[in-house]
């Protein structure tokens, strides 16, 4: 198999051996061009695919958002900023933004601290921790569609597992309509998201905790720091880079939430669990208002862009600097 790639079998200008250094100036320039061609040659297939199927579609969404367009032929009925002004008067869209914020806030306030607590717990020498680690992470490898169907049945009003268990322990009052009730649908959704995703964040934190040198916590112990002080003043600051990444992933994940909602509620009841992506899907694929749906895509893109840039500018930059220096220091 490898013999196909013997040096003799090489073809094409980008793979030719470096030219002999006959005349130094020209040779060097030629070699540099050759180097560039080789480098770009290796990039080319990936670049073509990435530009064609990731970058161009995103740019096209931006273009289409300025048209009234049903999705057939090329967009021609220019609408200016109409789609966007309409968006910001659309109660469903405004509700999407609120629900997105709701999920972000709950994730940061409850889900990630919970994941951190579990990581700290499982970082100790406890019996069976490998089993717990595996169990907590397992839902992350399941498809959102499968998770959604499972929990639509667990939380089936009246005869799902949740209501039966609550009834069995005498807490009937806590049970209810779950996904079918506008006032509880988002909270139930958040429960399912926590079930599915906290294990992923826990794994990130565990990886971060392993890299906290034990000498530091021991030194703090000798200095008389209690468990909380050791966590607060030694472990947590060293874990900060991991925490920031995990916050970033969690926020981006909440902004783009689609699969779970689509499978469980399709945005219902009466739009009360609709997300940006679901609204976009409804308009783009069900009602053929592609221009308007593209405007929603553009807003999602804008939220991600602004958040990413601001986050990198103000929060992540320090980490990247830190990372490069430690990498050189370790020699790894």
């Amino acid at each position: 198999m490898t013999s196909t790639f013997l040096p003799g079998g090489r073809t094409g200008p980008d793979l030719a051996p470096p030219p002999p250094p006959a005349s130094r100036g020209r040779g060097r320039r030629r070699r540099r061009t050759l180097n560039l061609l080789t480098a770009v040659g290796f990039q080319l297939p990936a670049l073509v695919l990435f530009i064609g199927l990731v970058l161009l579609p995103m740019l096209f969404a931006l273009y289409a958002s300025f048209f009234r367009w049903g999705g057939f032929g090329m967009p021609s009925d220019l609408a200016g900023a109409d789609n966007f002004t309409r968006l910001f008067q659309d109660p469903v869209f405004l509700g999407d933004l609120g629900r997105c914020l709701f999920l972000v806030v709950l994730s940061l306030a409850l889900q990630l601290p919970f994941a951190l607590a579990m990581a700290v717990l499982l970082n100790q020498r406890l019996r069976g921790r490998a089993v717990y680690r595996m169990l907590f992470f397992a839902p992350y490898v399941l498809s959102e569609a499968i998770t959604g169907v499972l929990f639509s049945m667990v939380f089936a009003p009246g005869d799902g597992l949740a209501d039966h268990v609550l009834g069995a322990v005498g807490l009937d009052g806590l049970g209810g309509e779950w996904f079918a009730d506008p006032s509880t649908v988002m909270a139930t959704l958040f429960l399912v998201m926590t079930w599915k995703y906290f294990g992923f964040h826990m794994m990130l934190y565990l990886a971060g905790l392993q890299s906290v040198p034990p000498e530091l916590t021991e030194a703090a112990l000798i200095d008389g720091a209690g468990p909380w002080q050791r966590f607060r003043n030694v472990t947590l600051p060293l874990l900060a880079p991991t925490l920031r990444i995990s916050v970033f992933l969690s926020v981006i994940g909440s902004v783009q939430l689609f699969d779970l909602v689509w499978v469980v509620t399709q945005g219902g009841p009466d739009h009360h669990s609709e997300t940006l992506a679901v609204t976009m899907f409804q308009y783009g694929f069900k009602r053929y208002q592609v221009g308007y749906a593209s405007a929603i895509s553009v807003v999602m893109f804008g939220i991600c862009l602004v958040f990413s840039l601001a986050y990198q500018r103000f929060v992540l930059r320090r980490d990247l600097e830190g990372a490069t220096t430690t990498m050189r220091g370790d020699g790894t």
Partner: protein
Amino acid sequence: MNTRRKTRNLPLHLVLVVVGALMAVPLLYAVLSGFKSTDQLSRNPIGLPAPWNPGNYTGILGSGDFWRLVGNSTLIAVATTVLVVVLSALAAFSFARFAFRGREVLFTVFTMGLMFPFAVAALPLFLLLRSLGLLDNPLGVVLPQAAFGLPMTIIILRGFFRQIPGELEEAATLDGCGPFGFFWRVLLPMARPALGTVSVLAVVTSWNNFFLPLLVFTDSTWWTLPIGVQQFQGQYAADYARVFAYLVLAMVPALAFYGVAERQLVGGLTAGATKG
């Protein structure tokens, strides 16, 4: 000392048992419910099945439909993985071992892909695939999945390729290896662990993808497992027990894969997150 530590750990164990139960019970509930008839399920929702009735499971396993979905999911996952790993390895090699003008700009373009959710591009991508005639065609899922997998894969592989000492490349060049020869015969064999990691990530991502197959496959011929599960629930809405059995069988491949490739999966996710 030892017993004191044990009693001090007791509350911690209690917390773990409670959380563990919350995680495991929905899964166990699905497994057990699959062994009941729907009639039994409504009379006996949370107890053990009595009698155990494997008919739901055997019925699904005996039908060709389920296996066709498994086959489709497998084919699409393997094709996506091969494509994304080959293209990313070539690109990461170039990013890691060549110095050329514009390299960092190009790399930033790829990493920017990480920040943007697939949902943003879904609509125009669908229109593009439609005009290319790739709807109801596995390539319509494979190509975009590979494209969206490139950033993460390139970042992980670049990090790995960079760690391989430059002396090796010099030695290979002296032995008459061109850039591609070095890449193919020296770098790739050395990068086997990293290639394993990114492959596992690509397989799991593709296997679980729902949005893209939902858009591309209007016809049931190429449906993947996640689509099949959703459709099955719609079709047999009243027959709860059967839906549970179907769910459990649809979970098995992913969980089994996780059991086999846990280290690569977790390692890849943490590496990807911290390096991205």
